């Protein structure tokens, strides 16, 4: 079977990534877009694009009937969900299949079983994959959790049964904070996944986040594409990912990759997926969850293994066998990904909306940029404020760090504040350079990590003055917005990315 027309049920950089894969495979790319995205790059790049509603995701990118309608109208024969949005919705996968279309992802049944984290834990236990000590029960109320928490011990984590991606997670240090954390996590989980169920896991201090990329075909071949380490996180949100992991020795690497293959095989997995593990300072590792979709950080795997994951997703979705064996896959060199966000590290990482007036991505050998916007595009309040993923590949980890520093410095993003100086500060820490960053590192050292306000170079002031002189004649100050509230004591607020 050959696929001819694909509905891309997503937006932004991942929609662009999928459109590029479609072009190479000779598949027509059909985009859908919300009001906020009418001028977006992925809409321009698609062969055809359909508006599907208001900017709020529930009105557009989460609206299953509208998406199926467009797929039918546009004559699609398959649907790629990207990541986020409906990518782990078994209801959407089922609706796509019921419409007679190919779902570019694992089966709805697999999504359901791995998506409910509590069921996934049970499955993995049966399959003999090691699990973090924890507590789960249907219909557990706060009282049940509070009682179970006593036997697990603090600190512990509250997690959402229904989802992943850092949403609905709370670390609780002591018993007094548990009720509030349960309530808040439940609200977030309900909003994000429509599923209020929670479970508890022991919190492992100084843990490392290591995940294994899986690709499996419909002929029973379940292969791994080695690991990614994603321990550089702020509030459970990955910031920097890399492959290989700097801490795995060959024996542990083999063990963790084999455990991932075992986990995927246990559910009859087909298509691309990721098995996440938590590695302890003692060298143990535990199953965390399985993401039944493409990951944000898939490019680091593509760069070190030379494999095109999105192309493979389409191929296995049509029933093709994988074109390689496990023995033909190896890691070469070192790849690092940095996520560039429109946010202000100096102001509690608040998202920084606005028009990206200038976006000049870095170029050069071993640099890949996955982004979904061009100069003039708006970063809006409606979606994740990630502007770009910058990925580098170099012969060694030290080379890759140097390459990334230069790539970040070469990136020009004007019109909104970004986390680039924070990323640079992270890359420059002794801990990152030595590969010693654990998942709590960024949060524990946030104040020290925040780069000092740099001296402003006189050349910067001169360039501004030249520019203002240049536009003097047409210059006016409209009664617009201002940054004036930033330093007000009244502006203080607590925030976190979900």
């Amino acid at each position, binding site marked *: 079977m050959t696929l001819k027309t694909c509905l891309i049920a997503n937006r932004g950089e991942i929609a662009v990534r999928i459109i590029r894969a479609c072009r190479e495979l000779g598949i027509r790319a059909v985009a859908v877009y919300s009001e906020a995205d009418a001028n977006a790059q992925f809409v321009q790049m698609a062969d055809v694009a359909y508006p599907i509603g208001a900017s709020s995701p529930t009105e557009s990118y989460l609206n299953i009937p509208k998406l199926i309608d467009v797929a039918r109208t546009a004559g699609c024969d398959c649907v790629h969900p990207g990541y986020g949005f409906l990518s782990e919705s078994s209801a959407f996968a089922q609706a796509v299949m019921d419409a007679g279309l190919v779902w570019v992802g694992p089966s709805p049944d697999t999504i359901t079983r791995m998506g409910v984290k509590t069921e996934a834990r049970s499955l993995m236990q049966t399959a003999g994959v090691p699990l973090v000590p924890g507590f789960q029960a249907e219909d557990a109320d706060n009282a049940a959790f509070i009682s179970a928490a006593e036997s697990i011990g603090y600190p512990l984590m509250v997690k959402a049964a229904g989802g992943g991606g850092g949403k609905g997670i709370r670390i609780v240090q002591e018993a007094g904070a548990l009720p509030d954390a349960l309530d808040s996590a439940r609200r977030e989980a309900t909003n994000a996944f429509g599923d209020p169920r929670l479970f508890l896991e022991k919190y492992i201090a100084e843990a490392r986040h290591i995940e294994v990329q899986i690709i499996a075909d419909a002929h029973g071949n379940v292969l791994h594409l080695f690991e990614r380490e994603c321990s550089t996180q702020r509030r459970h949100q990955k910031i920097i990912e890399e492959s290989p992991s700097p801490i795995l020795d060959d024996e542990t690497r083999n063990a963790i990759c084999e455990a991932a293959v075992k986990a995927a095989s246990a559910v009859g997995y087909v298509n691309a997926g990721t098995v996440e593990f938590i590695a302890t300072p003692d060298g143990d590792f535990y199953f965390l969850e399985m993401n039944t979709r493409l990951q944000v950080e898939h490019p680091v795997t593509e760069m070190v293994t030379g494999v095109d994951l999105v192309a493979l997703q389409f191929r296995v979705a049509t029933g093709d066998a994988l074109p390689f064996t496990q023995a033909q896959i190896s890691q070469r060199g070192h790849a690092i990904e940095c996520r560039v966000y429109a946010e202000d590290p100096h102001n509690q990482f608040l998202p920084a*909306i606005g028009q990206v007036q200038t976006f000049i991505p870095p170029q050069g050998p071993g640099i890949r940029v996955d982004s979904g916007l061009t100069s003039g595009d708006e970063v809006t309040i409606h979606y994740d404020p990630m502007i770009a993923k910058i990925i580098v590949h170099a012969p060694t980890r030290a080379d890759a760090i140097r390459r990334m520093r230069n790539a970040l410095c070469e990136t020009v993003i004007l019109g909104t504040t970004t986390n680039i100086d924070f990323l640079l500060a992270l890359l420059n820490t002794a801990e990152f350079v030595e590969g010693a960053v654990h998942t709590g590192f960024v949060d524990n050292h946030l104040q020290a990590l925040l780069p000092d306000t740099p001296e402003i170079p006189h050349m*910067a002031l001169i360039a*501004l003055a030249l520019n*203002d002189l*240049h536009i003097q004649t047409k210059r006016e100050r409209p009664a617009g917005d*201002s940054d004036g509230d930033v330093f*007000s004591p009244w502006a203080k607020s607590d*925030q*976190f990315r979900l």
Partner: protein
Amino acid sequence: MNFTYTYHDTEYAVQLDALPDGRYTATIGENTYTFSAHTLENGAWWIALTDSGGQVTAHVTAQDEARFVHVDGASYDLTVPDTRTSRRRGASAGSGELTAQMPGQVTAVEVASGDSVTAGQTLVVLEAMKMEIRVTAPTDGQVKAVHVAVGDVVERGQTLVELDTQ
């Protein structure tokens, strides 16, 4: 011509003058530079210092009071002084108003007019860009007025709650 920019609470004055030969001089504090300059694509400026042979390419954008500049591998965001901004900031701080730091939707209002609150207590929860933002009391006090309800979409700078802080 004089220009003033604010960068992280510090004001910088630049005096920029065109020379008869097409070059410029700029004075910042005690430093004076002589250079030639011209625009490139993307609003970039190319500046070549006469004395040192040094050169930079600076990408610049300007919108309202905001100024962004990228030079030597780093970006800086500055503002040009605006008297209206200062007035508004002063007013906000004096009256005990808690304002939205960014546009979003109100997902919870946890206090009512007349409630006593303690420092750090959550007053209102906003959701914006997939983030939950808790607006908390900066000090102990009493709620004077609540100006929003669950489901409201609020603009940046809009007052959410007024507090009496004694």
